[in-house]
């Protein structure tokens, strides 16, 4: 008798497990399908555009956006994390420096985008605070975070390498990337405190193509 009950319990268990398994599988496969469809829909986007990426992001104001929502602007992008004490302050300074040197008449055609490589710690709230602290609080500036996986993928697109080296610290490549209005990578500035002249020239060139 006892064994019968046990057996029933096990059956019940197996049943639920199977159901759960199939459910989980269905969900993952579905998300895969959706991505494929999303890619198909936007045929106007060029082959090399980052607007092909289906990933979803949250900005410093807690709004959900996709990369393609920024279509039509020149994007100047960098990957950082806000608790960083070593290289990021200089990278951030480089970004600010570039922004300051842009002529006023093209500023509304350019977005300065900082993408967090530490989505766990860099909540929208924290990104907002960081923006205010660093005087990067105008419309020009966009701070983004997403899942770890999307972040890894985006880094792969930018050819930015990063690794968590301790709970609070990451090592990462210091690369500032310029994307044209169609989301194609057109220039990369590598290193810290390097001369930004070519970067700025490229931004101007791309901004002038937008009417």
């Amino acid at each position: 008798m006892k064994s019968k009950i046990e057996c029933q319990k096990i059956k019940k268990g197996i049943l639920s497990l199977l159901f759960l398994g199939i459910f989980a599988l269905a969900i993952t496969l579905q998300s895969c399908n959706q991505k494929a469809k999303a890619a198909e829909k936007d045929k106007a986007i060029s082959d090399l555009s980052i607007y092909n990426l289906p990933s979803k992001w949250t900005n410093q104001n807690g709004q959900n956006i996709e990369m393609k929502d920024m279509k039509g602007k020149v994007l100047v992008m960098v990957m950082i994390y806000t608790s960083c004490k070593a290289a990021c302050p200089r990278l951030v300074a480089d970004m600010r420096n570039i922004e300051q040197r842009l002529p006023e008449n093209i500023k509304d055609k350019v977005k300065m985008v900082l993408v967090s490589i530490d989505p766990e710690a860099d909540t929208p709230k924290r990104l907002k605070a960081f923006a205010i602290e660093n005087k990067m609080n105008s419309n020009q500036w966009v701070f983004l975070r997403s899942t770890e996986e999307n972040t890894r993928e985006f880094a792969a697109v930018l050819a930015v390498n990063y690794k968590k080296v301790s709970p609070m610290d990451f090592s990462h490549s210091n690369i500032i990337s310029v994307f044209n209005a169609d989301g194609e990578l057109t220039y990369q500035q590598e290193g810290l405190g390097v001369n930004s002249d070519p970067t700025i020239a490229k931004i101007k060139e791309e901004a002038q193509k937008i009417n």
Partner: protein
Amino acid sequence: MIQAKIVLFSFLLGIGTTLWAQKTPMVLIKGGTYVPLYGTADKKPVAITAFEIDVFPVTNAQYLAFLKKYPEYSRSKIKGIFADKSYLSHWQSDFDYGKNNLSNAPVTNVSWFAAKKYCECQGKRLPAMDEWEYVAMADEKRIDARSKEAFNKYIMSWYEKPKTYANPIGQTFKNYWGVYDMHGLVWEWTADFNSIFLSGESRKDRDTDKNLFCGSGSVNATDLMNYAAFMRYAFRGSLKARYTTRNLGFRCAKDKVAFVKTFQNLR
């Protein structure tokens, strides 16, 4: 009630078996800790949570089946941002791997994006680099054979062998976990291949790089094993996500489903 349950059960079983039938066998890798040869500050051990990994790399035939379902990843359709020009260049055409390639040879000339997508579409993911290395340090009998001379010699002799990528899967040794082809067939993508630093990095991780390059004595004995690993890490460090090469394939992994826990909760 019981009848209804039985019907439901067999229905689900039916779905389950058809879904699972097409899948590559996976094995469970028990969790543990180990010190990877590169990539940790202070040589601290890395903790690996239990996960599952494909027993074999993905084959030409399997990849073809995927392309038929997702033609946007075929050779002529894939977007330039996701793969460079040599993507599947050894295949005959979009949906034909040709007579010169075995159906059960590992698929190569695939980009990281394509490999990642393939795994997602199987309900899996690419293994993390630390996971991959954890599985790869096992020989036939030991979880960690990295200090064994014969093991390292085996790996090194593979590096010297040309064109192993044309071989069928499953011909190399079966390791402690029951996994084949971690060494001896092709190099493999990992999810976070882009966490290696060869240049342009920001922080003190530089020490690691010195190890990578100056190889703080890469001629002494420990370091046949470091040399073997060096080759893998340096190779990964040289890759970009859209790159494809003839000797680079992949396999998929999966988080261990918390079956046991669910089961216990039910009781």
